[in-house]
């Protein structure tokens, strides 16, 4: 078949490849970029999902280090290197494992700039994966972003697709503040459009992924794809759903949210974390404060069930917010 008439699928890549590409590019650009974490070197297969595959071979074992299973030591080493000018990318394999190094993340990485009066800062990126769907149960699947968003001094980034993962990762690595970068594990291998090479996506800026005039659905991370599916379905009923992908959970793009909801007068916030005290509560409050008299309906939140992530497949499926729940919330605010 000739090239001219090729029916080959357009070039796609997945999030594993996208993050790998961003790390490769960052390491090539700046010798201060180092990677450390459990199993990240090639001898250990470049991470359990292969996100760091090839980097130790290309940049050497000094800059790409497989570590002991010692999360405090991993983040501590990354912080120490960061305050003297390196740009470490430290992997805490699973988001639940941040619980064993919260002291390093919250008391140190997030606070050293402030406590030192700006004399030191921590240009550290912590990569971590999570998400229900693989039957990994109560200690391997949680979305804990609200804890970190509640801590002043650390940014929380949660890409929804491979191209965003690439552009946001590059921004995190070269940002002068600590960033927690959340990768959704079940969506790791979902193909997406390739990114534009070298283009960094700014932190703190949301992205309108579907335009619509009737209701704003705000989300981040994998679940944005469910929001898009709902928007596309409702478009057939001539319901205009605007989907706003936050990209950065903290600090979030309040201006973009208020612009969109100011227009649609209705908002639904969707996240895979449990609903109570979640990111949705903060966003809903900001919307209420700014647009109270203009809203056509109370803000709706869609989140996971308020329980630990269950193992059994039917329970796990019921735990994660579904497209049906998102759709129902949209219909509620349209009533």
């Amino acid at each position: 078949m000739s090239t001219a008439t090729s029916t080959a699928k357009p070039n796609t890549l997945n999030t594993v490849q996208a993050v790998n590409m961003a790390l490769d590019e960052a390491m090539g650009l700046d010798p201060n970029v180092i990677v450390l974490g459990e199993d990240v070197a090639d001898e250990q297969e470049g991470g359990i999902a292969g996100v760091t595959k090839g980097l130790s071979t290309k940049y050497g074992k000094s800059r790409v280090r497989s570590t002991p299973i010692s999360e405090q030591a991993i983040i501590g080493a990354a912080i120490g290197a960061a305050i003297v000018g390196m740009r470490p990318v430290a992997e805490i394999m699973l988001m639940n494992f941040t619980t064993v190094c919260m002291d390093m993340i919250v008391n140190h990485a997030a606070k050293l700039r402030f406590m030192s009066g700006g004399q030191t800062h921590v240009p550290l990126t912590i990569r971590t994966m999570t998400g229900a769907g693989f039957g990994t149960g109560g200690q391997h699947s949680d979305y804990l972003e609200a804890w970190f968003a509640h801590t002043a001094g650390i940014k929380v980034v949660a890409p929804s697709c491979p191209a965003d993962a690439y552009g946001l990762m590059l921004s995190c690595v070269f940002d002068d503040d600590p960033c927690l970068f959340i990768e959704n594990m079940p969506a790791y291998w979902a193909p997406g459009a390739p990114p534009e090479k070298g283009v960094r996506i700014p932190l703190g800026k949301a992205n309108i992924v579907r335009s619509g005039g009737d209701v704003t659905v705000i989300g981040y991370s994998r679940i944005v794809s469910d929001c898009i599916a709902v928007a596309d379905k409702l478009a057939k009923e001539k319901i205009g759903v605007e989907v706003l992908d936050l990209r950065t959970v903290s600090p979030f793009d309040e201006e973009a949210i208020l612009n969109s909801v100011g227009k649609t007068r209705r908002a639904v916030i969707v996240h895979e974390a449990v609903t109570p005290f979640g990111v949705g509560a903060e966003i809903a409050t900001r919307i209420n404060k700014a647009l109270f008299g203009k809203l056509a309906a109370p803000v709706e939140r869609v989140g996971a069930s308020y329980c630990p992530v269950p193992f059994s497949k039917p329970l796990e499926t019921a735990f994660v917010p579904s497209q049906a729940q998102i759709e129902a919330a949209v219909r509620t605010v349209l009533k």
Partner: protein
Amino acid sequence: MKSVYVDIYRRMTLIKQNDERFRAVIKLGRIISPYYPVRGQEAIPAAVSANLTNDDYICTIYRGVHDMLAKGVPMRALWAEIAGKATGTCKGKGGPMHVTHPATGVMVTTGIVGSSMPIANGLALAAQIRGEKRVAVAYFGDGASNIGAFHESLNMASLWKLPVLFVCQNNGYGEHTRYELATSAAKISDRAAGYQMAGVTVDGNDPLAVYAAAKEAVERARSGGGPTLIEARTFRFFGHLLGDADNYMKKGEKEAAMANDPVPKFRAWLIANGHATEADLAAMEAGIEKEIDAAVEFALSSPNPDVAELRRDVFAHELSA
């Protein structure tokens, strides 16, 4: 007056006299601050620091003004920080538990037991990757050797041959609990063996012993030989936190330790061995006292930080009001 011994004594005197003044000024209410006294522990950072330069890093802890002063943090900025003033090392935003002064290598002061060690590893890692000859020192107390971060850090440092000194200032008490009631190891330095690391216990009140142990450890670190665990045994004269009634201590224990005060003991040794004269040392002590007068005055007369500082240094960009 050029000998290293006199230099160590100068650092010890700096610590002793500043500690005396901190306690006095805070007790008078002229400065409001929690304060963790360091009297009795002078010899350790004084003798360790005599082996270091400004290019070498330290991470210290809430009981850390001795480590800071020994490393060279200027007194005026230190006093102003403890007074919470805009002229302090950290603009008054850190306080005594978070003093930072990169120009003298004081990179982190932590209020969390055990957290100096993982970060010191990172400072050493940066030096190693960059091929620099710097070393990093993590100071911590005996209580910190029972927290997980100690074990994770020693293991990683040994595995990667990081240029670190883990300096445990074993003052016999973790907060109010006696060493024997909290620590299963007879000696903290015994724990080094489990990490294939050099470990040594020295008399922390003997500056010569600490100096020799630190010298060997610094040479090992600079030459790529990896980390060392130094346990320096000492005693804190004024309890955990200023105002501590010491009721948990054994009767007579503190008095015995104070009778063995390392500062006057070393002073007498210097004179007896011809390293300095009484007049030399008296002049040095008087000079330090004058500098402290000026530092206290500077701190008390300095302006408070602007409230706008609440929005600065949270992130690289200033937060909106």
